[in-house]
């Protein structure tokens, strides 16, 4: 039986690209309902970890149990269907498609009749999207695009959402807006795992902090513990 409190259990996970091994035995547990932040230096394997969990990078060893099922090396589509969404790094909408079509793509795997109504409810939640319904996503500002991307992910009502670098390339006020939105998504009942370069900011909103060092877990604790850890501060938080 799966432990109800844990939504994601990663056990001794190894993966990489061809002969280059990036993850070297990562074990990690994500509690249901928490916000977890994965931080670490460039090349530590943060993005690779999310990609391996989502089935985009092949795991060579270890297990990934999501909601009681082993999903290691399953296809992304199947993982998505189980209720695990992944928001890739950087631009993650279809710039030459309208906002409306982007939302339809967000709900791509859904075949129920509620999709239209759900998209309408996103328009109510984020009125800026309604005003831009027929505008090409690529013609909107960075903040508007980020809001669109979150709305796209929410259309699947995921149990767990993994976000790779949500604040990448955004102006400071927009970073604030995005983190607020992430907290709201989490408050609505979606467990959240994010990878962030903006470690201080990420840890300040997180229940759980994980520091990845050269493909292994270096430090782990509550967001506060990690933010206050002397060594982590020196190496990753700029003193």
């Amino acid at each position, binding site marked *: 039986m799966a432990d109800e409190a844990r939504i994601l259990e990663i056990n001794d996970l190894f993966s990489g690209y061809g002969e280059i091994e990036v993850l070297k035995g990562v074990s990690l547990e994500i509690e249901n309902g928490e916000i977890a932040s994965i931080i670490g230096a460039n090349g530590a394997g943060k993005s690779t970890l999310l990609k391996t969990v989502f089935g985009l990078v092949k795991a060579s060893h270890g297990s990934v149990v999501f909601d009681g099922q082993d999903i290691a090396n399953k296809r*992304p589509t199947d993982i998505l269907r189980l209720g695990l969404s992944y928001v*890739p790094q950087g631009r993650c909408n279809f*710039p030459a*498609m309208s906002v409306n079509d982007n939302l*339809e*793509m967000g709900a791509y*795997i859904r075949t129920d009749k509620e999709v239209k109504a759900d998209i309408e409810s996103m328009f109510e939640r984020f009125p800026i999207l309604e005003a831009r*319904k*027929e505008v090409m996503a690529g013609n909107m500002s960075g903040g508007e695009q980020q809001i669109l991307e979150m709305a796209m992910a929410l259309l699947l009502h995921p149990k767990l959402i993994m976000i790779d670098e949500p604040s990448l390339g955004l102006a400071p006020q927009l970073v604030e807006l995005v983190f607020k939105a992430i907290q709201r998504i989490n408050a609505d009942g979606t467990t959240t795992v994010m990878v962030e370069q903006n470690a201080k900011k990420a840890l300040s909103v997180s229940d759980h902090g994980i520091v990845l060092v050269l493909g292994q877990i270096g430090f782990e604790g509550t967001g506060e513990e990690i933010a206050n850890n002397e060594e982590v501060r020196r190496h990753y938080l700029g003193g």
Partner: protein
Amino acid sequence: MTSARNLWIPAALSVALLMVLIGLPLVIENRYLVHILIMTGVYCALALSYDLVVGHVGLLSLAHPTFFGVGAYAAAILSTRVASPFLVNLVVAGFVAAGLASVVSFPFLRLAGASFAIGTLGFALIIQLVANNEVWLTGGTDCTIGVARPRLTLGPWIDWRVSSVSDYYYLMLIILLLVVVLCWRLTTSRVGRTFISIREDEILAMASGVNLLKYKTFAFVVGAFIAGSVGAYYAHYSTLACPEALSSYMTIALLIMLFVGGVGRMRGVVLGAIMFTFVPEFLRIAPTLRMVIYGVLLLLAIRYMPEGLDGVVTKWWRKLPLARTLASSGENNQKAG
């Protein structure tokens, strides 16, 4: 969103265009000009099917004319050896091309970007060699000749023997309309949205749950089916199938039509096909300069019209007072609704 009220204008324009197309052979007495119109139709249909692959899914296939040629040979061989009727040949040629496409798509669609393009080019060259050298099958450089003129019968009501140039023109018009409707339905549906999502961002499309291989194969095979059927028409029109039908000159011509016209936009592709069937006719006065002029046009188009002819036309259209009135009434409707 287009409201019902301003849908009638495009509808009326389409009907008017269709009337003009139906009337053309009645007013044009020059048979050579009608022949050019037929070739324009052939290129329009080919370019539209090529655009499904290049413009919508974003796969730079260099083997599209190969499927046209394979369809032409399939129809020519069937017609000359077993005397099967035109409609059967049309469909069988489509299936032969589509079958071949689905077989080669298996290795090719596992190649990324440039490797895919090179792979398809290699395949195109191999089929050219087959057409030239397997004389028992294709007739080699002597071509497969003596393809029957089409005869379409439907019970006791219709018995249409296609023989004059204007008969061929109407037959092409019917085929082109079918291709336009098929491409239109495909690209404006959920499938079309999926195609575009793959072109825009493969990783994100995959993350959204799109089965990349399935849709890429689908576009490649449907494109090949259309090209094969158009090839069959061409064989029945020219009454022969020659290795030239497979030449890579055609790949270049099609690419120019797509990129100058407006890749990924049906209207643009049709515009490009029309222009680049007529332009070579004018360039007959200077045949040696033809490729140079093509090259210059392609460069100019990429530099000054990144969205192709269609982008330019759309920009002009938006400046017209009529278009402005329509757009504002559309906005009002949206606000009211």
